């Protein structure tokens, strides 16, 4: 039979070495994720409880829980969602269903890419200049949410575009042939067939908005605000609020003698909610792919 020549042996060896080398490279990136989550959980274990989530920070933020910042983050995310979801979805509809191949479309796409690339702190400056000062909203939940909404718009546009692209052209053509107008086709055929993909993008926007710190620092989030525990409507959107991300920054850098474990607990709650929301979007996506009929 064939005996291995010197060359093919060397080829096989390099092949194996390279395969293992790249496997190690990939694994080395995954290791930090596990390591970080494990480390945070281990350090946070003494403080983690339901009570931690439902009590306000106490004693100049050296003790207590996370109620005020947690509720603040929910407010910021929900209000920003109301702005960015419609604009983002319709922007993607425009780019995918209306826009023709032209230099203008190219520029629009380039603007989406560049909007995604603008540093978060520049978004903060924009928020201060446009919403806090020019529009006269002052430092408020509204101003911070609008800043977040514009910052996370590209997330929704990108994933909605993907969802719309997945709807086969023949669906649209069949609908047009029945005499439907463009908008009727979009409303009755394109959007219902891609709604779950669009939803994935909206969920991703939520997770992105929840984690941001820089854009809300000067537009509406404050270091400390006392609100009623357990009241879901404790914030007014024209006032400032606390936020989980900013709270983590504050208690880990600005406040001395914080009870050991509280910053870790805050980080766990923040990472936990963001990853949970992300995982939901991934599960939805994987489920949809298995269910797709065309």
């Amino acid at each position, binding site marked *: 039979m064939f005996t291995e020549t010197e060359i093919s042996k060397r*080829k096989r060896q390099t*092949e194996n070495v*390279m*395969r293992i080398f*790249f496997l190690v*490279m990939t694994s*080395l*990136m*995954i290791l*930090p*994720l596990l390591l*970080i989550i494990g*480390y945070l959980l281990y350090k946070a274990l003494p403080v983690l409880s339901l009570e931690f989530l439902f009590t306000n920070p106490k004693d100049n933020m050296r003790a207590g829980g996370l109620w005020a910042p947690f509720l603040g983050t929910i407010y910021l995310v929900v209000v920003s969602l109301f702005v960015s979801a*419609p*604009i983002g979805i*319709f922007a993607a*509809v*425009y780019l995918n269903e*209306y*826009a023709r191949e032209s230099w203008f479309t190219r520029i*629009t796409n380039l603007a989406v*890419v560049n*909007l995604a*690339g*603008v*540093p*978060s*702190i*520049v978004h903060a*400056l*924009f928020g*201060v*200049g446009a919403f806090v000062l*020019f529009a006269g909203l002052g430092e408020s939940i509204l101003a911070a949410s609008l800043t977040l909404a514009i910052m996370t718009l*590209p997330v929704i*546009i990108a994933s909605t575009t993907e969802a719309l692209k997945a709807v086969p052209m023949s669906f649209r053509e069949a609908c047009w042939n029945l*005499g439907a*107008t*463009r*908008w*009727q086709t979009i409303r009755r055929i394109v959007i219902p067939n891609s709604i779950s993909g669009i939803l994935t993008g909206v969920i991703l926007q939520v997770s992105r908005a*929840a*984690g941001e710190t*820089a854009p809300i*620092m*000067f537009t509406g989030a404050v270091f400390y605000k006392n609100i009623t525990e357990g009241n879901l409507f404790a914030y007014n959107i024209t006032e400032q609020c606390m936020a989980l*991300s900013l709270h*983590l*920054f504050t208690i*880990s850098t600005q406040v001395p003698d914080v009870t050991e474990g509280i910053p*870790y607990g805050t*980080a766990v709650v*923040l*990472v936990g909610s*963001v*990853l949970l929301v*992300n*995982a939901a979007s*991934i599960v939805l996506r*994987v489920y949809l792919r298995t269910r797709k009929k065309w």
Partner: protein
Amino acid sequence: MNILRKKSAANLPFSETAIELFIRLCGISSIIFVFGIFFFVFREGAGFLFNGLDLGQFLTSVEWQPTSLNNKRYGAFALIVGTFSVTILAMCIAVPFGLGAAIFVSEFCSPKLRETFKIIIELLAAIPSVVWGFIGLTLMNQLIIAVFNAPIGLTMLNGSIMLALMSVPIIVSIAEDALKAVPDSYREAAEALGATRWQVVYRVLLPAAKNGLLAAVLLGAARSIGETMAVLMATGHSVNIPSGPLSWIRTLTATIAAELGEVARGDEHYQVLFIIGILLFTITFVVNLIADLVIKGIRQDS
């Protein structure tokens, strides 16, 4: 048929045009926002930029003394150097790992393992920057002190490692797209000549996908340049020209984040922070533009 036509004809004039107008408006919203960002940041900083700021001093002096009473200096050179040095070091760490992982995921992996890796990379990308900063402040700080026997672990190296971990997911996903975009016929041709997987990657795919890989690196770098919270918390935050990976630095982004809360509106110092914002906007805009042109370049070739 008749009924449908009547209905749609009756509906068309107003509701259809109105909704189309709205969709078109949303469509160009990104353009409006990009211009809006530039306009409003520029508006706040313009007064001092054209009238008073010594631009030469701003770009070349290392003296950043905005709060000094009798000797105010706005030299951002150390901040610019800080931003670029932390980014370059981060890229030195992230690029080999990112490209290696992209090659593994796209060429050496079974489909099932690929899905798993991609999900994990996506989760890695989802961790908020303030949490990376917190990790830098606690875990990485102690690690650097222990490993390098340094007096303090909040250094450029610390920030670079955090930035590397944050930008790796972007590099992986764009590099993987670039590798996928290489037609399968290239791979088949090389394999038919007896090439092993590694030979295909090294001799065929890397040259064919080099533009996309370059774009991946550029976008990773743009992300690092714009990152704020992680570098604010992990790099020691002191104005300094770094002499090595273990020196303290301060970046452009971190300066804005740390000082904007303490200045009065309309103040020179306040306006200088907005001018730094213009500088950051311009840098990332140019890098993103180059990356886009590079990507468009490959599309036209293939």
